[in-house]
């Protein structure tokens, strides 16, 4: 499932909703990204996250489906927030459910790498005196 949303999410609730559908899940790997207080040698106050929503759903679905197929995942959840996010706020969640642990780790890493590379989101960081568009390195 892909969710592009403004609002925060609760890890336990999001995971539980999926886990309770599959009793064959033995392993879950989750990645969560947060807004950090300090970046580019500056104190961050907040970020504004812009998204090309229809295309983000499209790209993340492709990445997710590839991961499910390549690592035989039982299920997979990607949540990405947009809008104004403050320091300590969650930005992204990727959760890969599988029978055994290595597949969940590798699939989650794969999804994050491609999300960072191809998902159409843009972060603008705001400091106490200025702002800056960020760019993911490869």
């Amino acid at each position, binding site marked *: 499932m892909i969710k592009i949303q403004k609002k925060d999410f609760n890890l336990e609730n999001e995971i539980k909703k999926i886990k309770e559908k599959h009793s064959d899940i033995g392993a879950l790997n989750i990645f969560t990204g947060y807004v950090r207080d300090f970046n580019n040698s500056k104190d961050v106050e907040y970020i504004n996250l812009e998204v*090309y929503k229809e295309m983000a759903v499209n790209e993340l679905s492709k990445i997710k489906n590839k991961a499910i197929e390549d690592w035989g995942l039982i299920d997979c959840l990607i949540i990405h927030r947009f809008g104004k996010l403050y320091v300590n706020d969650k930005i992204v969640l990727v959760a890969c459910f599988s029978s055994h642990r290595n597949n969940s780790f590798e699939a989650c890493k794969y999804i994050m790498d491609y999300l960072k590379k191809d998902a159409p989101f843009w972060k603008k960081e705001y400091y106490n005196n200025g702002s800056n568009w960020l760019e*993911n390195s490869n």
Partner: protein
Amino acid sequence: MKIKYFAWIKEITHKDFEIIHNNHPKDISELKGILKKSYPDLEKYFSKDILRFAINLEYISDNQDLSSTDEIAIFPPVSGG
């Protein structure tokens, strides 16, 4: 034909999107020419080849033909996650 702008491209075009009703460009290459004329500040980014194009939500890498119903997006390197 709809052209969408994102992130700091919007700060150059001063709009989120625009619609080209008549005489739309026949391919991406021609579209670039039109955009460079309308927004001279875009030229250096085109020449540095750092912008990405998507047609109807799909990335394109080469030049490609366009039709009047296409939604074209132009954006800088992404920074999600």
